[in-house]
């Protein structure tokens, strides 16, 4: 009745909204983990032809996106002992509505793009929506952890787009991107620790003030 890959893509879209609507950092991180798991399952569901590269891609995505990065981020919020995004620049209701707008725009744009065959149209739309919502999270939230979450969402969106081109892009490139993301999040994590030590807070709004040490 419900094609499995459509369901997975829909789940990815809904998790975006969950990240936008929640103020609890840990549930935001957990939903990116769940999103990562859905993304890892997608190539296997979309083209059920197994090869060594595909197994590697699925396992690599699962390991990096839904285990390594979330564990790392959860550890980071534990170390910095922050739980909640208290006052985002744009309120939760506002950002949810902006997210809905982003989805509407994404679906309109995806229909006009020349790449979209009927099968990959949903993928392209979901990809554009996820990238936009990732940007939204980066721009509107104050806690630096949320900026990392936004970055992960952004990458998830790009990965979704990559799936539509999976017959053209070698899997090695995908794996390389995966590694890049992990290194990126790792570096951001280290920067977070430093910010926290210097400013005693992870509020990115305070980074505009220069301070001598």
């Amino acid at each position, binding site marked *: 009745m419900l094609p499995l890959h459509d369901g997975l893509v829909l789940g990815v879209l809904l998790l975006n909204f969950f990240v936008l609507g929640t103020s609890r950092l840990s549930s935001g991180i957990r939903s990116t983990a769940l999103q990562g798991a859905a993304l890892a399952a997608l190539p296997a569901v979309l083209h059920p032809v197994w090869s060594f590269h595909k197994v590697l891609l699925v396992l690599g995505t699962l390991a990096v996106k839904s285990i390594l990065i979330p564990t790392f981020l959860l550890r980071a919020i534990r170390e910095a002992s922050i739980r909640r995004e208290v006052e985002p620049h744009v309120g939760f209701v506002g950002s949810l509505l902006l997210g*809905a707008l982003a989805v509407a725009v994404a679906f309109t744009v995806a229909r006009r793009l020349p790449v979209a065959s009927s099968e990959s149209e949903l993928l392209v739309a979901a990809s554009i929506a996820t990238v936009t919502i990732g940007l939204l999270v980066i721009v509107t939230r104050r806690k630096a952890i949320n900026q990392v979450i936004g970055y992960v969402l952004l990458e998830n969106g790009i990965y979704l787009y990559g799936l539509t081109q999976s017959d053209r892009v070698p899997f090695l490139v995908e794996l390389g991107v995966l590694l890049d993301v992990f290194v990126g999040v790792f570096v951001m994590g280290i920067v977070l620790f430093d910010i926290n030590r210097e400013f005693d807070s992870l509020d990115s709004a305070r980074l505009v003030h220069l301070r001598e040490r």
Partner: protein
Amino acid sequence: MNAAGLAPVLLLMGLAPLVQGLVHRTRALITGRRGIPLLQLYRDLWKLARKGTVVSRTSSGLFAALPSAVLAAAIGAALLAPLGPGGSVLRFPGDFVAFAGLLALSRYALVLAGFESGSSFEGMGASREVTIATFAEPALFLCLAALALVTGGRDMSSLFGSPMARAPLLAPALILVAGSLFVLLLAETGQVPVDDPTTHLELTMIHEVIVLDLGGPDLGCVLYAASLKLTLLAALIAAVLVPPGPMHLPWMVAGVAAIAVVVGVVAGFSARIRLDRLPQFLTAAVVLASLALALTLR
């Protein structure tokens, strides 16, 4: 006018207090209590029907008419809802606007009754009720728009006439519509994440505080209308989700019962949302519905 559609409407109208009882009972069992008997609302209604009413001196003559208006509007909505195999009793193009309007009318009669009583507590509850409605109504219309696009219909009977069978490819959108309608049901009928029907503190009440000054048959009208609205919305969700095939009455009743149990489970497992966070929860319904709309526009 579809006289054959009258039987299922009367059946569901008769079952409405039982549906309410099912929700209460499920929630009570989950939270570790025994709960009130399933048929308690029937007994309450019977008791209330035999009582007299006391009307506050501050209220005007309008007050006496409002509870029956609440009930009449709810029954009108039931006549427009497609509950049986033959579709709704009254059917005309664009009747879904009338359906939403009657639900709104029923709510506003209740709100007005709250204000009419002259108590500030009830005015407060009334203002909260309207705040919730502000978020709930756009979501309802988005749901109806998505369903109209899926089925290509222009009245309630074709909108909710087994859309799952007609457009199996759009199942994701329909599931989202059902999710949005479910959030609406929780908001509209005052179930737990939105409102707590068992609370005893006036400051935290929404639905219960409005009816504080009502008594006797008036209270009975409002309580019965609430259970009828719950049943109606549950029936609409069931109509969206039923497996392919014509709407059979047993399916409908089973669907309504299943949704009542789900409402009870959700109510049992969740805590009440803080009032200032409520818009955030209700926006979820709007977002789900607009996502469904985006999927159908594809």
